[in-house]
């Protein structure tokens, strides 16, 4: 890790010996003394929270894998056996299932924080892009994992989503069969999904390593979005941010535990307690809540290929965001107009989620008797805004908006200096 002068001095013979050969203690020590901006607020604690989420998923996941069999005849029964007969299986299994939802909750907060405070801008493009890669692999991992309990939603969710691969021109059908290992979702599918579901979290862990490395190299962004200029502007990571992160992590765990112990099924779908039946399609096939906004985008157009392209585009646009936002000012605190567009974007994301859960032909906003805006059109409007925010609003606002005056330094903004814009807390 680079970025600041190492102050670690090995004291003992063994540590001196090790420091010349593998400076791993130095790395840890430098990590702890890393100068972090002094004004990081609670939105910055989600990095630590996400690390915890990944660890929880991997540990519970490995334990579950020891008791699970990826076979269509026994997979559903195995989950029941884990919950009934495996010691503490009744705790581990909901931890893993609820953990996935909590992981996505935390990652969305983390991403919106990056969007609001402009954490993706130079010189932090690689942190953002690596984050997007992590998010993409997370989506794949969650989708694969949801298939494993082999309930009705597992089976039909996998069927619906894999069906979209047939929309790829020329090779679509072959591609879908290659992915599924047959003509439909069946035992070969379950087996490969299990193998990949086991593999991908470790890929995530590796990319997280790069993500953190890039962050330590470029330095952390902060709520006012200006670089630290003096020693006064920063604090050592430990103990200042270790204690703040620890507090936030425990508050997060309280919410996590609340769901595990009292509402383990609230975030899931009742249909997944029915064993997969290829001959009985559920009345409504809906993905888990964290995919709903993208599901709404997917369904917003009547054409299958266009829907697929839009959904892929919705994530692809995140990758090029650092070059779409033309403003030099990072934090939305100093961008009075763009900030309103951002709030609308946040609300719009919830509306997309709402559309994803609903039946497209149902009325969303009634206007008179039996008339009104249905969910299909609402999702079309929302999809339009989603893309407009990235492709029009951010590029144009950067050119025409007059940002507020930036504070001289982080310390000045914290101490309530001359700056007017720094409504820092």
């Amino acid at each position, binding site marked *: 890790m680079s970025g600041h002068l190492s102050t670690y001095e090995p004291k003992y013979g063994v540590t001196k010996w090790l420091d010349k050969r593998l400076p791993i203690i130095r790395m840890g020590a430098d990590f702890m003394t890393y100068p972090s901006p002094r004004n990081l607020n609670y939105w910055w604690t989600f990095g630590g929270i996400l690390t915890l989420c990944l660890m929880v998923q991997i540990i519970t996941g490995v334990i579950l894998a020891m008791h699970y069999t990826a076979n269509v005849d026994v997979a559903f029964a195995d989950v029941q056996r884990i919950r*009934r007969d495996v010691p503490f299986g009744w705790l581990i299994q909901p931890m893993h299932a609820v953990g996935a939802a909590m992981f996505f909750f935390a990652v969305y907060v983390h991403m919106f924080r990056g969007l609001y405070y402009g954490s993706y801008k130079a010189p932090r493009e690689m942190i953002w892009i690596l984050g997007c890669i992590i998010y993409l692999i997370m989506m794949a991992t969650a989708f694969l994992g949801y298939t494993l309990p082999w309930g009705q939603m597992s089976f039909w969710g996998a069927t619906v989503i894999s069906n979209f691969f047939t929309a790829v021109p020329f090779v679509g059908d072959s591609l879908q069969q290659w992915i599924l290992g047959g003509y439909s979702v069946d035992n070969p599918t379950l087996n490969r999904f299990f193998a990949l579901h086991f593999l991908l979290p470790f890929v995530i862990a590796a990319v997280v390593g790069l993500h953190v490395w890039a962050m330590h190299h470029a330095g952390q962004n902060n709520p006012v979005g200006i670089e630290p200029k003096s020693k006064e502007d920063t604090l050592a990571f430990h103990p200042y941010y270790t204690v*703040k992160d*620890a507090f936030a992590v425990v508050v997060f765990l309280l919410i996590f535990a609340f769901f595990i*112990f009292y509402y383990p*099924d609230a975030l899931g779908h009742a249909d997944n307690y029915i064993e997969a039946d290829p001959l009985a399609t559920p009345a*409504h096939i809906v993905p888990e809540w964290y995919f709903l906004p993208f599901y709404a985008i997917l369904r917003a157009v009547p054409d299958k290929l266009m829907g697929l392209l839009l959904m892929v585009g919705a994530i692809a646009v995140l990758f090029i965001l650092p070059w779409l936002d033309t403003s030099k000012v990072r934090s939305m605190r100093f961008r009075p107009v763009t900030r309103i567009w951002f709030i609308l974007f946040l609300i719009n994301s919830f509306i997309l989620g709402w559309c994803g*859960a609903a039946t497209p032909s149902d009325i969303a906003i009634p206007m008179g008797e039996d008339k009104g805006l249905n969910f299909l059109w609402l999702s079309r409007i929302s999809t339009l805004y989603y893309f407009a925010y990235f492709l029009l609003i951010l590029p144009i606002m950067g050119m025409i908006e007059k940002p507020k005056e930036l504070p001289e330094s982080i310390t000045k903004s914290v101490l309530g200096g001359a700056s007017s814009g720094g*409504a820092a807390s």
Partner: protein
Amino acid sequence: MRLTFKTALVAATALGLAAFAGVKVAEAAGGGDAKYKKQVEWGFNGFTGKYDRHAMQRGYQVYQEVCSSCHQLKFMSFRHLGDKGGPFYDKKYPNPIDNPVVKYIAKNYPVPIQDIDWDTGEDLPRDGKPVDKFPSPYPNSVAAAAANFGKAPPDLSVMAKARPDGANHIYSFLLGYDKDDNMYNKFLGTKVAMPDQLFDGKVDYEVIKVQNKDGSVKEIQPPEATREQMAKDVTEFLMWTADPKMEARKSLGLSVMIYLLILAGLLFFAYREVWRNVKH
């Protein structure tokens, strides 16, 4: 401006939660006709909810005498009945396979266990043991469907979780039959392959015997076996089969929540202490 942003954030979060709640409500109603939906104040709801053991015992009796002739509990073994938190748990028998009630139930279960003769390999039906799974009333799913208007009766192990608001769903379903047409279920709004099953007095509830500390036996008279009572009891039992570890989960949950609350408080003070000289 800051205020506006916070307000907007709260509004957006509220909207999100409302949307989520809306989906959940729609989902809950989607399971049946809201007009015929019955809401029961179940003792197992809430943060300290527990199953009513006597109701579960009566519920098991209803299952065995009424439901089990068509519906299996394939994820359940007899021994589960004697697990901690189960209907026939007895602290004298921490290992449920020693529990005499469980042994009795397994041995006298109306459907024999399909085993093989270990000398000849020939089929050898035998009496059940606590370690056996609840047997299926049908030799296979085709036979199950053939005997029931072409639709195999679903397994009941996790039924109470496989429907939104499962307990109320099952209760409303069992009591939702039309008076004039015992195949039409008003709650589901459709004809169903299972005709109305419960009528007053269908099951003769057993007297529950409880041993007092001094060794004397107290007899607890069961309630009258009305339609509603039987539906309620069997629902209680099926909720337990779907979520047998609920009591353990909720009780550990309470300790975990208290522990985390105290830890959060301590860490907050540690945070204040560490940051006391730093304006931020």
